[in-house]
């Protein structure tokens, strides 16, 4: 069951480990009821601080446009992919969270989950060391 803390609804999410030089893809499963609308769906990597559970790391933010088909009789299940959240701005550590938000609709519903992302150092830079020479 969803739990509301600081106006961010906590929702289920899997855990992943990513390198700093990789990007994160987020599939957002959601329901919608209402007339046909266009809006925006955004995702951002977050970290816990003393002040807030979902402190946003702005460099990871990514938004996509969504077309919501009309559903006046019942809710409909929809999914949208937000591809390529850059992780270069995240320090290598565990415990990152993710927050998704909806824009251009009434209110600003926000959902997220904590401690689901571990970021490791980027791939090593290729380095060639000549250790010895043999002349003949």
């Amino acid at each position, binding site marked *: 069951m969803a739990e509301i803390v600081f106006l961010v609804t906590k929702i289920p999410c*899997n855990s992943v480990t990513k390198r700093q030089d990789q990007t*994160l893809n987020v599939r957002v499963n959601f329901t919608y009821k*209402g007339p046909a609308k266009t809006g925006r769906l955004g995702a951002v990597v977050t970290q816990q601080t003393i002040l807030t559970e979902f402190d946003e790391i702005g460099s990871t933010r990514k938004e996509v446009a969504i077309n919501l088909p009309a559903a006046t009789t019942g809710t409909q*299940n929809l999914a949208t992919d937000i591809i390529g959240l850059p992780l270069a701005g995240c320090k290598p550590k565990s415990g990152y969270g993710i927050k998704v938000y909806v824009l251009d609709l*009434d209110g600003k519903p926000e959902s997220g989950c904590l401690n689901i992302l571990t970021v490791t150092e980027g791939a090593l830079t290729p380095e060639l060391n000549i250790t010895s020479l043999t002349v003949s």
Partner: protein
Amino acid sequence: MALEDMIKIEITKPLPETGEAGIVYKIEGKAKMFGPIGAFPWVYAEVKKKEWYKPEILEETSFERGFPIPVTGSFTIDFKPEKAGIYEVTVLATPAPLSFPVVGVFPVTGKADMMKVAVGAPVEEKVIQVESLILS
């Protein structure tokens, strides 16, 4: 030339024929002067809520102020019907800005064709709820 014909009002983005109460609709257009009449024309939308049982003099009439874009002669006007009903919207031009045109716009130096909008009651609530996320 009649006073009402001194400014030609061209509507580039008219109102839709149908709408929803509580939603903001934008009218866009251009106002061009035909004769030397002084200051740049100010535009207003005269909004009449038509009710079949009321004589025209008792109709609800309001005025929405336009926002002129300097040099280009373009303008935009926001129209937000609060109640369901039939509205007749006419864009008017006047040579002087009126801060609060309660009684009416005078003198009218330009008049566009009337736009008729059938406004329905607000459609049911738009509810979007994020259920889960899948990270990859």
